[in-house]
């Protein structure tokens, strides 16, 4: 059996290699001919069925063409029809289909019996899950069950999860991993504009003169978009400024690299505004007509204690109070705090303040995974608001998304504890709308949010949650302060269901594992950073008994008596889900494209109004939802955006005598998140086989550590031994270390701190205190 399997597999791989080369040749040399008998059984472009799909990986949302032959995905190329990437991919995208075929792909359910996971049938597993959910609810109440999903859920997955848990069972215990990646971006949008998601689009890149990257290693994290910046620099001599806490490939490519001390982006943003005001670069007319000033609470805490609660309070402020507030942020006053010279701050301010410059600010995890993440989002919006550089082509504060559908699923469908597909659970009118569309009694949908992600895992640890279903995410690698929450999930009388495609540290602790259909093995939609919804057909059959997350949820719902909420046939259920979901977003502010159009096109942006995509929101010239002839920030009752007076506040944990280094975590180009897919793609795994710790060369010298040697890193929560990387891919500043989190054998989140932004509840993965020692073991 093993011999036959290996022979068949090797034959398939050789065929794949041959096909790849023949396809590459036919792309590079049009009209090329190979001898028929030699290519028999191989497949070149004429005999491959190419179909569109968004890429499986990041929030850029590149359009791909997947080559399918003989029921297998054999090739990938960029979709030239996609306005996102225009035919270009990054190294992950080009190898994406290989993630479907690793040897240890989960194909059958597993149930833990007598401590060991054993193969079971799908019916057995689904029956057990529904029995367990029912008995947990009967014995402990509705809020004892929870689902933790993902920004890699497709839109139908998230919609069904929300309807099942909130509309059916009647619990708001619905969270997704976008809480730990994008929540601060969401609260930044909502507190400044009253509506989520960027007002601009990727086309801003073609118009901007200056790009300021705020704590974002865009060259590795959003590589195809970064290529578009570089392309513009070749064509139009634009400027790229890298404002970051460490030196990366982005820094190397930028026109200017400015390093700052962790957390002090808050002070820098205010200081830029100070300079803009001082030099008379404010757009007074814009401010007067389209903005108001607000202040909120300060000293708002860090959420490290269980049951931490915080509610902000917005107070009216004035332009004069704002100017007075900014006095504390004179560039000369904050040089020591930030590590940035007054000269550099003034330079940044001049770029924003120059009326002839169109400026695009771009950011992602550096600003979002931040204990004042909401505040720093507000403060970067402030810069654009006081200069009036917003909602016009090229003038764009742009919050980039990490995951392929954090926008489409988690934010737009609303798979967070407080959210509904339209609005929030706390608003009766929003609950009424959901109840009407879902055809459930209004009282089914609870009016109070329960737990955000960190608190949900705390509740699991405490025993307030007994049952958790985890889909398409890997929290046993990604949750901060991991030791506590892993131990909590493994406690007696907890029941954990995990839906995934490969074994991971999260499936390791599961009571039931369900094999999931992956990506193009099922139909679905993703929504990317620029409000573009992209549809993909089912191109392949999933292996074994693997089933889509959508159908897994529906099957369990049926077994629990909620089948009437999901009355659709398997053949057309995705279309039906989309049609129903669309009802939540009708109107000019958030209209979404019809299903038939999504099937045809390489993505359609929303708002989609009268057959047209809205590229720039809140500007009447481009946005039909605007009232009046000018700007209208219609998410706010009076149509005015809020300029917030948000101060600098220190992080939750800073280096001290015992733990003298900052620990920063993040990603590398080659690996997606926890590596469960990309580490199974041989060429990507070979490129970066293991995680490592980056040190500054002078720190390494002081600690007597050389490149490649073993280093022990310890925090108040855990310790880890890993290999030092000095002057290789990236270089942290002195007093900092950087560790990528893709390696499940090196769990850096055992060291990180579960402090979060009190407003967004998003944890800070970029700042905690560690000590670093040469390891002698």
């Amino acid at each position: 059996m093993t011999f036959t399997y290996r022979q068949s597999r090797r034959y398939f791989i050789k065929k794949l290699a041959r096909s790849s080369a023949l396809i590459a040749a036919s792309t590079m040399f049009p009209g090329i001919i190979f001898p028929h008998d030699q290519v028999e059984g191989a497949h070149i472009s004429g005999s491959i069925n190419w179909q569109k799909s968004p890429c499986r990986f990041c929030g850029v949302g590149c359009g791909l063409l997947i080559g399918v032959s003989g029921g297998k995905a054999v090739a990938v190329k960029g979709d030239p029809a996609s306005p996102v990437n225009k035919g270009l991919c990054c190294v992950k995208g080009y190898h994406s289909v290989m993630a479907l075929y690793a040897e240890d792909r989960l194909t059958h359910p597993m149930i833990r019996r007598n401590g060991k996971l054993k193969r079971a049938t799908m019916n057995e597993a689904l029956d057990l899950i529904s029995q367990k959910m029912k008995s947990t609810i009967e014995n402990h109440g509705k809020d004892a069950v929870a689902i933790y999903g993902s920004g890699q859920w497709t839109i139908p997955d998230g919609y069904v999860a929300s309807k099942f848990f909130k509309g059916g069972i009647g619990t708001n215990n619905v969270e997704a991993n976008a809480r730990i990646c994008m929540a601060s971006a969401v609260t930044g949008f909502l507190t400044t504009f009253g509506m989520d998601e960027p007002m601009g689009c990727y086309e801003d890149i073609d118009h901007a003169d200056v790009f300021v990257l705020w704590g974002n290693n865009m060259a590795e994290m959003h590589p195809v978009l970064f290529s578009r910046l570089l392309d513009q620099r070749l064509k139009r001599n634009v400027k790229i400024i890298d404002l970051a806490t460490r030196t990366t490939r982005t820094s190397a490519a930028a026109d200017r690299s400015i390093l700052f001390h962790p957390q002090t982006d808050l002070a820098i943003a205010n200081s830029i505004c100070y300079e803009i005001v001082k030099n008379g670069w404010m757009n007074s007319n814009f401010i007067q007509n389209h903005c108001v000033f607000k202040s909120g609470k300060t000293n708002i805490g860090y959420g490290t204690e269980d049951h931490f609660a915080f509610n902000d309070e917005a107070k009216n402020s004035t332009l004069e109070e704002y100017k007075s507030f900014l006095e504390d942020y004179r560039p000369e006053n904050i040089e020591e705090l930030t590590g940035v010279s007054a000269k550099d701050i003034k330079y940044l301010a001049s770029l924003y303040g120059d009326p002839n410059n169109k400026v695009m600010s771009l950011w992602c995890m550096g600003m979002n995974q931040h204990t004042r993440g909401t505040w720093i989002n507000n403060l970067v919006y402030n810069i654009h608001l006081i200069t009036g550089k917003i909602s016009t082509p090229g003038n764009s504060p742009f919050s980039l998304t990490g995951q392929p559908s954090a926008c489409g699923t988690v934010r737009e469908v609303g798979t967070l504890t407080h959210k509904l597909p339209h609005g929030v659970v706390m608003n009766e009118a929003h609950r009424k709308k959901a109840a009407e569309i879902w055809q459930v009694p209004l009282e089914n949908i609870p009016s109070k949010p329960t737990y955000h992600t960190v608190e949900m895992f705390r509740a699991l640890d405490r025993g307030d949650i007994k049952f958790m279903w985890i889909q398409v995410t890997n929290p046993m690698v990604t949750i901060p302060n991991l030791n506590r929450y892993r131990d909590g999930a493994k406690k007696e009388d907890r029941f954990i269901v995990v839906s995934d495609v490969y074994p991971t540290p999260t499936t390791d602790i599961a009571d039931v594992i369900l094999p999931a259909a992956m990506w193009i093995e099922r139909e679905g939609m993703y929504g990317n950073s620029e409000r573009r919804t992209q549809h993909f057909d089912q191109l392949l059959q999933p292996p074994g008994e693997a089933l889509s997350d959508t159908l897994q949820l529906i099957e369990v719902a049926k077994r629990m008596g909620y089948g009437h909420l999901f009355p659709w046939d398997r053949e057309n259920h995705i279309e039906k889900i989309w049609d129903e979901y669309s009802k939540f977003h009708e109107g000019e502010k958030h209209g979404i494209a019809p299903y038939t159009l999504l099937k045809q096109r390489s993505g359609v942006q929303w708002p989609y109004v009268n057959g047209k995509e809205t590229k720039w929101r809140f500007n009447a010239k481009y946005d039909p939802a605007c009232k009046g002839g000018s700007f209208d920030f219609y998410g706010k009752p009076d149509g005015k955006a809020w300029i917030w007076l948000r101060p600098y506040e220190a992080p939750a944990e800073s280096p001290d005598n015992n733990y003298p280094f900052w620990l920063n975590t993040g990603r590398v180009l080659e690996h997606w998140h926890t590596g469960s897919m990309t580490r199974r793609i041989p060429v990507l795994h070979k490129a970066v086989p293991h995680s490592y710790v980056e040190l500054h060369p002078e720190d390494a010298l002081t600690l007597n550590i050389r490149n490649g040697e073993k280093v022990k890193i310890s925090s108040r929560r855990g310790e880890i031994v890993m290999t030092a990387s000095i002057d290789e891919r990236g270089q942290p500043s002195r007093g900092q270390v950087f560790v990528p989190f893709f390696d499940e054998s090196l769990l850096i989140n055992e060291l990180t701190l579960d402090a979060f932004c009190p407003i967004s509840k998003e944890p800070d993965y970029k700042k905690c205190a560690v000590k670093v020692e040469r390891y002698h073991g």
Partner: protein
Amino acid sequence: MDYAHYKAIVNTRLKKTRMPIKSYLAIPREQQKTELENVLSTLPECEIIPSENKDVIVIVTDTPNEKDDSLLFKKINSLDQLDLITLVSAFDN
């Protein structure tokens, strides 16, 4: 396959013997395509598919381990008849 077997695959993934399979596009020097084909076809771990109408040869290599793969590549790359070789895909088994 039970779960222990899955985990065994994961745990040995890094350690197991790699048996690389790779494919390349080879561009011969001017008017040396036939000579290059002849030389490549003598290499036992190489399968070649020369184009009928362009100076391009597809090469698929299949070696038992990384060392042999590296040696084979060096051998091919050093051929006088070869102008350019580019890797298209690489797999471990």
